[in-house]
């Protein structure tokens, strides 16, 4: 995308007025999406964006500028703007040399080390959407509306910095989702299901769009007879792969070093302490297969790696990017990510999951006299400072007498991270991952969440039933 001599001149320019660190992050991204709605192919969309973000770190201050102009002149202008933060530093020149560095993560499982991702033709994509639409509508007469969408992106990134790093990667991601409305005597209900991987069109070798569509449709249909969710605290069983969003919100965000270093997390200063039930071993791992949060190198050029955050209930470490690691005199854990070249990197999760336990999923339900069984979660949100977090259900049932009984309408559940982590009293073997989009400080990145069936002894359920 940019030649090494140009990168070296741009990095030197960025440090012309001083500063300890400079970086060029260049990106060339193409996206395409197709939407079938209301029985019609409504919209095909294609986009292309390329540009570079340049940052300069001087003392405690980061200067950042970005440009869509990848010529040397354009890059030099952005470097000059980013260097403004170091203007008070006196000056002096510094020569920067960058060298190649492998973009494949240890183990060769990175996105750069696989066969080149393939692209589906527009016609192939539309055929998938039609099949999903038919499968959803065929799931029941009460299905009144279906929307199916397919989005693909391909992103080439190049990172060079004044420490001499030169790294590049190509990341392909594909996402397919189905959203259904069912209509009945009680009004409208919705069902949603999505599959997303760090893959090209190979996603569809692994995923059946018909199955996805039926899951979404059945979710909407089952809720037509749903009763209001309970209100108050009850035991909650989360199905395997229902969305490990529980841990993403209950502690994942609170373990991001930017919150820790600002003393804005309930987990600040707790490394080495028992913060969760001994059944909880939590891992963040950017190297897992082709999961949605997987990559070969992060957006600072650091290879993805496996980080154990909580080991049998004991907090072992936080998540780090370059800037926060540097403050602490350590190395990044490969968690520096950004939405596009127009954004500064920050500490982000990759694939965050609870390691499976040893119990049988059905047994966990059978041993729960009364509670709520959550088959599918939607999103969530956390206040890292207080630890209070919510997560929403999109498919849930009552558990009565150790059996899953009536479906429940959607509701949020609320809890406090450190308290909930200690209440995990059973973890099964049926592990599964789900994709999600994580938003933080205005930036969205793809992440994975995973967990086996588990039980929390008490969570407050925000339903409308008294």
């Amino acid at each position, binding site marked *: 995308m940019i030649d090494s001599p140009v990168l070296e001149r741009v990095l030197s320019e960025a440090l012309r007025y001083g500063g300890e660190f400079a970086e060029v992050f260049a990106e060339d991204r193409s996206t395409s999406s197709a939407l079938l709605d209301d029985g019609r192919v409504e919209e095909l969309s294609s986009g292309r964006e*390329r540009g570079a973000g340049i940052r300069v770190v001087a003392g405690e201050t980061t200067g950042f500028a970005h440009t869509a102009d990848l010529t040397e002149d354009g890059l030099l202008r952005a470097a000059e703007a980013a260097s403004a933060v170091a203007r008070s530093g006196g000056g002096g020149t510094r020569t920067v040399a960058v060298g190649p560095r492998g973009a494949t993560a240890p183990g060769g499982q990175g996105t750069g080390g696989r066969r080149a991702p393939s692209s589906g033709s527009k016609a192939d994509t539309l055929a998938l959407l039609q099949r999903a639409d038919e499968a959803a509508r065929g799931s029941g007469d009460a299905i009144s509306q279906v929307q199916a969408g397919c989005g693909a992106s391909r992103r080439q990134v190049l990172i060079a910095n004044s420490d001499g790093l030169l790294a590049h990667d190509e990341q392909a991601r594909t996402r397919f989702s189905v959203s259904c409305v069912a209509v009945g005597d009680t009004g409208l209900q919705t069902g949603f299901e999505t599959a997303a991987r760090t893959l090209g069109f190979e996603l569809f070798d692994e995923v059946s769009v018909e199955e996805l569509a039926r899951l979404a449709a059945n979710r909407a249909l089952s809720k037509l007879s749903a009763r209001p969710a309970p209100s108050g605290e009850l035991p909650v069983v989360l199905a395997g792969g229902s969305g490990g969003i529980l841990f993403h919100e209950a502690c994942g965000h609170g373990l991001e070093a930017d919150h820790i270093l600002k003393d804005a997390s309930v987990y600040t200063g707790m490394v080495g302490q028992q913060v969760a039930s001994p059944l909880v071993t939590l891992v963040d791992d950017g190297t897992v297969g082709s999961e949605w949060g997987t990559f070969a190198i992060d957006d600072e050029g650091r290879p993805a790696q496996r980080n154990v955050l909580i080991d049998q209930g004991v907090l072992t470490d936080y998540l780090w990017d370059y800037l926060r690691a540097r403050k602490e005199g350590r190395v990044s854990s490969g968690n520096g990510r950004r939405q596009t070249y127009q954004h500064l990197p920050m500490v982000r999760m990759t694939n965050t999951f609870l390691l499976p336990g040893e119990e049988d999923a059905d047994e966990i339900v059978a041993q729960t006299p009364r509670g709520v069984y959550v088959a599918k979660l939607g999103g969530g949100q956390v206040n890292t400072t207080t630890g209070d977090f919510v997560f929403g259900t999109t498919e849930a049932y009552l558990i009565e007498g150790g059996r899953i009984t009536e479906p429940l309408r959607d509701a949020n559940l609320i809890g406090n991270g450190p308290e909930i982590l200690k209440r995990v009293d059973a973890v099964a073997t049926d592990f599964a991952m789900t994709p999600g989009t994580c938003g933080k400080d205005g930036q969205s990145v793809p992440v994975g969440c995973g967990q086996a069936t588990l039980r929390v002894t008490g969570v407050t359920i925000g339903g409308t039933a008294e």
Partner: protein
Amino acid sequence: MSTTIEESGARGVVGRDPDDLLVLADRVAGWARSGEEVEVYVARGHETEVRAYDGEVESLTSASSAGIGIRVVADHRLGFAWAGSLDESVLGETLDEARDNASFATPDEHVRLAVPDGVAAVTVDLWDERLAAVPTTEKVALALALEAQARGADPRIRQVNAADYGDGSVEVALISTTGIRASSRRTSGYLSVGVIAGDGGASQTGGGFSVGRGFDGLDPDKATDDAVTRAVRLLGATKGPSGRSTVVFDRRVASTLLSVVSSALSGEAVAKGRSFFADRLGEQVGDPVLTLVDDPTDPRAYGAAAYDAEGLACRRNVLIDAGVLRGFLYDTVSGSRAGTASTGSAVRGGFAGTPGPGCRALTLAPGPEGHDEAGVLAAVGGGLFVQSVTGVHSGVNPVSGDFSVGAEGLMIRDGRLAEPVREITVASTLQRILQSLVAVGADLEWLPGIAAGQTLAVGDMQVSGV
């Protein structure tokens, strides 16, 4: 260490002749072939962001961006493509890609571009000429002052985790072969601060902001007071009690609620059976105190605009009048589908998005009593005051109407704010909330987003806590 920032030389493309975007859009639209209609949307912007932390500049971002979005309609089929650049080389490619995308869409008689409808656009002045002349040093100084002010505002403030200054300018031109010709420009500025309060027990957080059309008039006192008050009054909060309660929503939360309700008023959602308002036109859907209007021609509104995202004049639309559902918001396609015309309500998320119907400036008619927040509290006497909500995206479903959100705030006793509560949920359905409005405040405040803030009291909500 103090940081001195000098004005950067890279001012990007802002400041050129504002008509040059129209000229460019006109030229691209001129490449339309016979038998096709083309709409060209061109935008460019410049933004500055300063984040202060612990007496220093944590980051300074300065950036320009520009892009184009092209819609092609041929044989009642729509295709779209965009590019994050206005380089000559991408313009033709983007048009070709949009044209190719159109060839795959399902023919639909309602698919068409907007045509001028004779409604004259009002003049709304959204451009602060002085913003471009404010030196970066002053913006930095304001962010640092905000951070220092918040840190020193109250002995219980133990951390200011974010203190931001930001501004931006955007210019847009829209030209179509169907006769649309519109251009607009706007500037904006904001201060935003997040604080953490602690008094030995659990910490609490609060956020405050001040927004404007530029640098002048931004109010650090207001942002600080808001953030500090919100954090400090929550100190000592405990999990509140469960039960049925009247709930008073603070202006910011009420604005969020209105925004959610507005998605059910989208003519597209209604036409596609994705709104609980479908088939209810002319019916009593809310308490008679409820009158809801979207009026982007009000220059005080944050979302004020002369033109909608298809280049039609924005206009005042009455949606609910004294509790009776009177209308929906339409863009050109959804209007045609419903057998009516566009209400000038197309919105889009910049050059990379396609238009769809949406609100820009929702307000509720103030209740006859003319209450401010204290007046509403006194009127309800007892209940729960909610100052912030979480999980709106995961717990509020504008299709089914199910409503469940995490909340924190204070109990209302004897018509006044009493002890703080946290880690609770508030639940109902959107349908029931509209029918159960108890009071609408006259304390209208224009907030960033699509809806104004007014204190709102809702009866008979389910609160889940202990």
